């Protein structure tokens, strides 16, 4: 019975994804060449894709394992540079000819995988010593790692100042490889969506597995977890690596989206959307322990960021108010404070959105709401 339900859930989700995917492909084919679609919507979707993967992967460590890591963008940077450099090398070796070459697709897939693997490898180097620490100490070590990795990349001869990011000219060095212009973004939109869906599915399967249960046990009580026979340090390190793998993949998608790379965009002091604290904000906003929550929060934060930068209503506000929007970090902080005030556990809490359980869940929520209301009225009547 239980197995049947799981199978039905997988079937339902796959069917809906395929349906949406086909609809989207048809839409792309029809509108692919139009300005707003090509220049605004598609790049936005690309950005949402990597933010979703990034936030969901950090949620694994922060929400499910309960370890605060402040260096997640470091792994993303590793992934982004790995993918860009690999595609650049393939381009220089002339292994493919333009983006329509089927061999380009192979290069693309290999670059993305390599980005994830290298990020995971680095996370092992950091994680094996660092995960023996707890709480604040781990946060500081990972924070330091995030800063160090940026400096290392900056000083590597093949990807630092003289390499990829050599002014605007150097930055677009890999544009014939992985760097996608707006036309290529439309052409490979299916790839971004597929990678995102696959990554989220793999993260979801991990959380639902026996291993997911083990890391939740570590979060709740490390002593009892180890008394239950879990090798806690092994699990912590492996989960950290699994999470970094997807951060690396998010980095690869980032490299595709932007077609230029500069280490400052991953730096801790960066005021934009991509710094490690910002990812933590996304996870907290969506709900620690809800992957779907992280995905939703990533989209929300992207929209907030987009509106701050491009929204026309901002300029209509009185000068005293629109002044705030000069400092995006201030607005993100306000959004976070408002959400925490009204929903202390984040938008989703630990609830996972699911198509199959949507109707029963809504029904239960209404029932609970009514019961609470009735109880309140009863209490009033008694008083």
């Amino acid at each position, binding site marked *: 019975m239980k197995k049947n339900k799981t199978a039905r859930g997988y079937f339902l989700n796959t069917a809906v994804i395929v349906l949406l995917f086909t609809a989207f492909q048809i839409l792309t084919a029809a509108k692919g060449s139009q300005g707003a679609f090509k220049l605004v919507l598609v790049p936005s979707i690309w950005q949402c894709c990597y933010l979703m993967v990034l936030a969901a992967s950090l949620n694994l460590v922060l929400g499910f394992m309960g370890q605060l890591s402040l260096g997640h963008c470091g792994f993303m940077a590793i992934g982004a540079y790995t993918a860009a450099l690999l595609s650049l090398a393939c381009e220089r070796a002339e292994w493919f000819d333009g983006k329509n070459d089927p061999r380009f697709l192979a290069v693309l897939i290999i670059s993305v995988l390599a980005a994830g693997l290298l990020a995971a490898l680095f996370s092992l180097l950091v994680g094996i010593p660092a995960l023996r620490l707890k709480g604040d100490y781990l946060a500081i070590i990972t924070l330091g790692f995030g800063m160090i990795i940026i400096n290392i990349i900056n000083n590597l001869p093949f990807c630092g100042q003289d390499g990829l990011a050599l002014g605007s000219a150097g930055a677009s060095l890999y544009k014939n490889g992985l760097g996608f212009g707006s036309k290529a973004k439309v052409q490979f939109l299916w790839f971004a969506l597929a990678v995102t869906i696959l990554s989220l599915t793999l993260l979801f399967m991990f959380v639902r597995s*026996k291993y997911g*249960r*083990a890391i*939740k*046990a570590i*979060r*709740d*009580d490390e*002593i*009892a*977890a*180890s*008394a*239950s*026979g*879990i*090798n*806690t340090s092994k699990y912590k390190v492996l989960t950290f690596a699994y999470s970094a793998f997807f951060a690396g993949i998010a980095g690869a998608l980032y490299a595709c989206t932007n077609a230029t790379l500069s280490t400052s965009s991953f730096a801790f002091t960066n005021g934009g959307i991509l710094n490690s604290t910002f990812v933590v904000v996304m996870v907290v906003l969506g709900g620690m*322990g809800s992957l779907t929550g992280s995905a939703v929060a990533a989209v929300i934060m992207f929209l907030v960021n987009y509106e701050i930068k491009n929204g026309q209503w901002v300029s209509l506000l009185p000068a005293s108010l629109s002044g705030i929007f000069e400092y995006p970090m201030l607005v993100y902080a306000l959004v976070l404070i408002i959400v925490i005030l009204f929903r202390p556990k984040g938008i989703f809490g*630990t609830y996972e959105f699911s198509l199959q359980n949507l109707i029963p869940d809504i029904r239960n929520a209404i029932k609970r709401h009514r019961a609470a209301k009735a109880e309140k009225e009863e209490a009033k009547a008694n008083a």
Partner: protein
Amino acid sequence: MLEVKDLNLYYGAIHALKGISLVVHDGELVSLIGSNGAGKTSTLHAISGLLPISSGSVLLDGKDLQKVHPNKIIGLGLAHVPEGRHVFARMTVEENLLMGAYIVRDSKRVSENLEKVYAYFPRLKERWKQLAGTLSGGEQQMLATGRALMTDPSILLMDEPSMGLSPLLVKEIFSIIQTLHENGITILLVEQNAKMALAVADRAYVLETGRISMSGPAAELADDDRVRKAYLGA
């Protein structure tokens, strides 16, 4: 059979356990009583490998537990119900129990054990979907005990199961311990509530500042003047 021989344990410069030796035979319920800071919990932690000992040995059915990694000890049939319950607060009751059977690979055995635990603790079955953190203290103690039983242990170490519970619940917990004992589970029970611990046990050891000061059949110890004066308040 659990055999502890001449166990010594230090916390830094403090000599916490000074040559403890004790034996728990198969099917026995043995109590370890003593006042605060006598070393009861340290003894249990040393046995289950959570604390490193400086000398002595712990043998489970003749096997030296010192040579086994702590997270493998549970696989040898020794389960530990930690002091203060330590349930996984943000996981459901059933998830908590499944965590107890983490090392059991055979899923059929897991569901059999789950049924067995639910038979011991019907209250847990009623609340299988509830988050463990929202259970009452007594229910959490049942959950911690049930979780330890999920591996079919040959010996159960219980650390202060009555801690922080109302007198009524203490009685209930001890009746459960007795039921487990009657069903043939070997138990090493650590308690501050000496009266109850001596009432249910076959044999008992009295621990005093890191040393075993007395040992013998529980009924005899309960009648001993020194024990009565020191621990039973009479």
